[in-house]
C-alpha cells in the first residue's frame, strides 16, 4: 500500500483506482454472496418502486400549495393546496378568527422560550424564571381578559398552542418533581423511599389514557366543594404527575451509576447532605441520565398527543377537523403526513440537542 501511495500522482488517485475502490465497496457491502445479491436486488426494486410512486404522487401529479380545489379534484396526486387552505384550522382549531393572532403569538412566545431554555447560558434559576414568565404570558395571551383582550374559553385553545402549552409546561414542572422523587427513592429514608417507589411503579403501570381520564373525571372531585377546575389545567396537572414518574425512573438510573465514593468524599469534605446532593450527586447523575431523559422527553412530547382522546383538540384532532370537511374529505393522508413531519422534525431536534449536550458533558469532564 505504501509503495502505491508513493507512486501515485499528486493530483489524487487515478480514476481507475477510485473505480476499483468503489467496486470493492459495492462487492463487500451489497453483493458479498448470492443471498446478499438477491436481497439487494429485491430491496432495491422495492425502494425504487416506492420512491417512484411517492414522487409521482407527491410531486409530479400533485397540486402545489398555490392550487385550487377544482385542480385537486382533477389531479390524481397529492393536494397540497388543502394544507394551505386549512393551515389556520389545523394550527389554531376553533380559536376565534379575529383573535387568531394571539394563538400564533402565544405559540411564538413558547417556541422562543423552548429554544432559549435549551440554548441560552442562563443556569437553573434563569430557566425557572423563563418558564414562569413564558408560561404566564402564553396563558394570558391565550386566555385574554387583560389589556382589553376578549376572553377566550380554554376549550377553544386548539392545535399548536395547546400542544406546546401542555407539553412544555407539564415537562418543565415534571422534571424537578421527577428529580425529587428519584432522590427520595435513593435517599435511604425508608418512609420516603417506600412512598416514591410506590408512586413511580404505580404510575408507570397505568396507561396514560387512564391517567387523562382520572384528570378529567376524578381531579375535580378532589377539590373542595364548589371549586371548579378547567379541563386544560386538570390535564396539565395529571400530565405533570404522570411524566414525573418517568423522569424519576431515568434519574434513578443515573443515581445508581454514581460511585459511592463520590458521596463519601463529599461528606468527608464537610459538605452537608443538601450540598452533597446539589453539587456532587445531581450534576453527575443527571449527566449519566441524559440518554434516558432524552427518550422520556421525546416520548412525553409524542404522548401529549393522546390528550385528543379526552376531547382536547390537539394537532391530530384539528387535522381531523380539516379533513372532515366534506369538500376536502379525500385528503387525510396529506394532513397526517404534515403532522408526522412536524413531530419528526421536533423529535429529531430534541435528540440532536441532547447528543450535543452529551458531547459537551464528556468534554467538560
Amino acid at each position, binding site marked *: 500500500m505504501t509503495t502505491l501511495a508513493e507512486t501515485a500522482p499528486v493530483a489524487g488517485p487515478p480514476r481507475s483506482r477510485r473505480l476499483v475502490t468503489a467496486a470493492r465497496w459495492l462487492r463487500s457491502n451489497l453483493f458479498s454472496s448470492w443471498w446478499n445479491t438477491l436481497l439487494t436486488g429485491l430491496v432495491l426494486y422495492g425502494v425504487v418502486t416506492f420512491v417512484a410512486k411517492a414522487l409521482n404522487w407527491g410531486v409530479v401529479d400533485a397540486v402545489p400549495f398555490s392550487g385550487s380545489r377544482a385542480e385537486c379534484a382533477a389531479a390524481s396526486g397529492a393536494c397540497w393546496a388543502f394544507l394551505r387552505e386549512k393551515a389556520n384550522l389545523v394550527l389554531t382549531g376553533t380559536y376565534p378568527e379575529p383573535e387568531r393572532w394571539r394563538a400564533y403569538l402565544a405559540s411564538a412566545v413558547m417556541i422562543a422560550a423552548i429554544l432559549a431554555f435549551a440554548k441560552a447560558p442562563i443556569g437553573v434559576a434563569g430557566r425557572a424564571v423563563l418558564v414562569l414568565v413564558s408560561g404566564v404570558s402564553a396563558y394570558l395571551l391565550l386566555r385574554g381578559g387583560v389589556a382589553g383582550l376578549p376572553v377566550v374559553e380554554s376549550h377553544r385553545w386548539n392545535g399548536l398552542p395547546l400542544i406546546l402549552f401542555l407539553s412544555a409546561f407539564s415537562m418543565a414542572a415534571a422534571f424537578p418533581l421527577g428529580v425529587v422523587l428519584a432522590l427520595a427513592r435513593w435517599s435511604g429514608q425508608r*418512609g420516603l423511599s417506600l412512598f416514591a417507589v410506590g408512586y413511580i411503579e404505580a404510575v408507570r403501570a*397505568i396507561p396514560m389514557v387512564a391517567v387523562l*381520564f382520572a384528570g378529567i373525571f376524578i381531579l375535580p372531585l378532589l377539590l373542595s366543594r364548589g371549586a371548579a377546575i378547567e379541563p386544560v389545567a386538570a390535564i396539565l396537572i395529571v400530565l405533570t404527575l404522570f411524566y414525573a414518574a418517568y423522569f424519576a425512573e431515568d434519574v434513578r438510573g443515573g443515581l445508581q451509576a454514581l460511585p459511592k465514593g463520590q458521596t463519601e468524599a463529599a461528606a468527608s469534605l464537610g459538605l452537608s447532605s443538601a450540598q452533597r446532593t446539589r453539587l456532587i450527586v445531581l450534576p453527575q447523575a443527571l449527566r449519566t441520565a441524559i440518554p434516558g431523559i432524552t427518550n422520556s422527553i421525546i416520548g412525553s412530547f409524542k404522548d401529549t398527543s393522546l390528550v385528543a382522546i379526552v376531547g382536547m383538540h390537539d394537532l391530530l384532532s384539528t387535522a381531523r377537523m380539516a379533513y372532515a370537511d366534506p369538500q376536502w374529505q379525500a385528503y387525510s393522508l396529506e394532513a397526517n403526513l404534515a403532522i408526522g413531519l412536524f413531530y*419528526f422534525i421536533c423529535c429529531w431536534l430534541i435528540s440532536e440537542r441532547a447528543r450535543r449536550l452529551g458531547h459537551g458533558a464528556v468534554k467538560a469532564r
Partner: protein
Amino acid sequence: MYSYIIMLSTRDPASEIVPAPGSQAFAAGVLKEPSPPPPGAPLRERLHRLLWPLVVLLGLVGLGVLGARNVTANLAAAGMEIDFSFLWQQAGFDVSESLITYSPRDTYAYVLLVGILNTLTAAAVTLVLASVIGLVVGIAMTSSNWLVRNLARLYVELLRNLPKLLIVIALYVALVRGLPHIKAAWTGPFGAMLSNRGLALPSPMIGHGGLWLALAACLWLVGWVFWARAVKRHQDATGQRRPVALPVLVAGLALYAGLTMSGLVEIGWSMPKLTGFNVSGGIGLSLQFAALVLALSVYHGGQIGAIVEGGILATSRGQHEAALALGLSRLRTMRLIVLPQALRVITPPLGNQYSNLLKNTSIALAIGYSDLLSVVSTSVNQTFRPIELMTLVALFFLIANLLISAGVNWCNHVFRIRGR
C-alpha cells in the same frame, strides 16, 4: 466553582451576603466551615434527616386526607357514595366486538370483562406481530448488506419520532377510505372478503368426531417431542443431524388426511356471506381491530428492533466468527449461537416493551375499538362512577404489569448463564 463557594458560605448565617467569587472569599468560606466532619453526623444534620422526611410524609398524608374528605363531600352533595353495586346493573350499551356473547342487557361487570378480553386479545396479537417485526428489523440492522442495514435504521428512526396515535389514526382513516364499501367487497381466495368493515375469513366447523381430532392432535404433539428427542440423541452420539420439521409436518398432514378421508372426522367450512349490509358466517376481523393491531405492531416493532440490535451487538464478534469457522450456516449461527446469547441482554428491556404495548392498546378509544378503557369511558358517562371504575382499571393494569415482570424474571432465570 462559583456555585460551590456560594453554597459553602450560605450555610453559615454569619455570611448571608453572597461573597464575590475569588480565592479570598473561598478561603474565608472554608475557614468558617468546620472542615473535618465530626465522628458521626452532627446533631443538626441528624435532625434534618429525621425532620424533613417526616414533614414531607405528613404533608402527603394531609393532602390525601383533604382529598378524601373533599371527594366524600362532593359525592354526598350529588347524593352518592362510593359503591360498587352498580356493577350488577344492566349496562345497556353495545360494544364494537366481543369474544364472548354479549348483549346490551348484560351487566356492567360483564361488559368490563368483555373490554378486558378485547384488550388482552389485541395485546396478544400485537405482541406476536411486533416481536416478529422487531426480530427481523433488529437482524436487518446488523446485516452486512448496506442497503438492508440502512433501510432498517431508517424505519427505526422514523418510528421513534412519530406519535403512536398519529400512526393508528392515519392507518385507520386510510383503511376506511381506501377499502371498498361492503357491497363491493373484494373477495380473495377461499372466500375471504375484505371491505371497509373489516376482513372476513372462512372458519372451520367441526361436524362430528371432535374427540378423534383432539386425540390425533395430542398424538401428533407427543410424536413431535419424541422425534425431536431421538434426533438430539442421535446427534449427540454421532454428530449427524436428521431433519425434524419436514417429517413432523408430513406426519401431521397425513394424520389429518387419514381422519377426514376415513370419515371419522367431518370438518365443514363456514363461509362469509353478504346479507344485507352485514357479513354473516366465517370469522370476522373488524377494521378497528386490524388498524389498532397493525399500527401498534409497526410502532413497537421499531422499538423492539432497536432492542434486538443492541442485544446482537452486545454478543461478542468472536462468537459469530467461531460459529462460521466451525462451518455453521449463517442462519444457524444466528439461531443457535448469536440469538440465545443476545436473549439475555434483550429480556429486561423487552419486558418493558411488552408492558408498554399492553398499556398502549388503550389508544383504541380513538378509533372505536371496545377495549377496557373505551368500555370504562362509556360506563363512566352513564353511571358517573369514575372513582370505582378507574380503581378497577388501575387494578387490572397493576396486576397485568406484575404478571409481566414475573414473566420477565422467570425468563431471566431460564436464560441465565449456567454452570460456569
